[in-house]
């Protein structure tokens, strides 16, 4: 319990201390983004995800130092997140094409395979139990991390949405790990939770920092790695339901991989400061657009709605973990 608390505290403190410095650095270098959903369109420092990576590195290395016998698992997790973060940083500084970025994120699953930080037999499902996928599973791991990192990156329409919903997913993975007695899932969730809470505090409405792709891709890869290393795949699929829904509809309406700047905006800002779903048939059907189809909303309310949906899918994912315990 002491080790777990210490890992969480180190991650939280190092992210909290580094975030203001990261924000100042990004602003001084002109790495800022325009907050499109505000009438005054303020410039906000980008790449706040760098502070998440600093916190994640500190917490994971602390855990590895305290438990050297589990270092392969912890380093596999850390390198996966760092690779995705580096790809995100490159994309933030020099935008990559819609096809190259997902292809590059396939690399983030490689450390898990190289460190042998996964269950070689395959995933565990409720009712079915342990599957036998020895040959296919390594390929599934590579694809899974690319899917989670890009799905998280795509669900970042409003202030605090990505950081808030990912905090909820991490908490649900933590509870699922406790239910199933999976130590790996528990410690890795705690490594990520501290930096994520800090990002949410700075990124919630009205945002003081944007996470950038460096943050969203790294957090998505870290969550995918927790699911695989902690053997929580089925629970993770349910916890990721809003992200899956968002990515799946966006891709199916456009019919190909796309970058946000290539397609019409799914959400428009009204003169009264509220957000509205566009009726442009060429715009992707994203989760944000579906939520706003019921009528205009303030950004704060829209962000809260997505986080509440994440809480509901998180509850279902915890229930899935309980089913896994009971039925297998």
């Amino acid at each position, binding site marked *: 319990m002491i080790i777990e608390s210490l890992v969480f505290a180190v991650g939280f403190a190092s992210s909290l201390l580094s975030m203001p410095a990261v924000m100042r650095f990004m602003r001084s270098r002109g790495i800022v983004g325009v907050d499109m959903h505000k009438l005054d369109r303020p410039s906000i420092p980008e790449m706040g995800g760098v502070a998440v990576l600093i916190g994640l590195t500190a917490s994971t290395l602390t855990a590895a130092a305290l438990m050297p016998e589990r270092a392969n698992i912890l380093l596999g997790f850390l390198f996966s997140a760092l690779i995705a973060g580096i790809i995100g940083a490159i994309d933030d500084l020099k935008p990559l094409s819609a096809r190259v970025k997902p292809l590059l994120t396939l690399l983030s699953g490689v450390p898990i395979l190289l460190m042998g930080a996964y269950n070689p037999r395959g995933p565990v499902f409720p009712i*079915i139990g342990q599957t036998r996928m020895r040959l296919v599973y390594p390929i599934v791991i590579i694809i899974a991390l690319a899917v989670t990192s890009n799905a998280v990156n795509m669900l970042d329409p409003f202030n605090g949405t990505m950081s808030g919903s990912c905090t909820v997913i991490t908490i649900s993975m933590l509870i699922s790990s406790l239910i199933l007695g999976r130590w790996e899932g528990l410690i890795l969730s705690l490594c990520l939770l501290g930096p994520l809470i800090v990002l949410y505090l700075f990124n919630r409405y009205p945002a003081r920092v944007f996470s950038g792709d460096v943050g969203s891709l790294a957090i998505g890869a870290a969550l995918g790695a927790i699911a695989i290393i902690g053997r929580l795949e089925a629970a993770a699929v349910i916890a990721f339901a809003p992200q899956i*829904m968002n990515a799946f509809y966006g891709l199916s309406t456009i019919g190909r991989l796309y970058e946000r700047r290539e397609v019409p905006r799914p959400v428009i800002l009204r003169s009264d400061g509220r957000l509205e779903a566009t009726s442009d048939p060429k715009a992707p059907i994203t989760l944000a*657009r579906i939520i706003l*189809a019921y009528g205009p*909303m303030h950004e704060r309310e829209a962000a809260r709605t997505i986080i509440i949906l994440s809480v*509901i899918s998180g509850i*279902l994912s915890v229930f899935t973990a309980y*089913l896994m315990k009971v039925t297998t």
Partner: protein
Amino acid sequence: MIRRIVDFTLILIFMWACMILGLWIIDRIIVPLEMPYVHPLITATIKVGASSALAIIWLWIWREIVKRMFWHTLRSHRRRSMRSRDGESGGKSIKGNN
């Protein structure tokens, strides 16, 4: 906000229940499938194919439900706002005539 959350919650619960049902079908029907006189590799391929088809059907149902819900909601919202705009302008013209 409540209406949006309730609709999505119902979809999430329905899709979750469908996933559990799909896993039950795989466990009870597809996995125990025995095919006499058929090579075990072909039987295994058929089992994987059938399970994958179930997963694709699950995703397809999910997509269709949300797509229909989205366009229905958008149309009914537009109709409602047009009706209320017509009502407002009608009221003004009557007042003006008087």
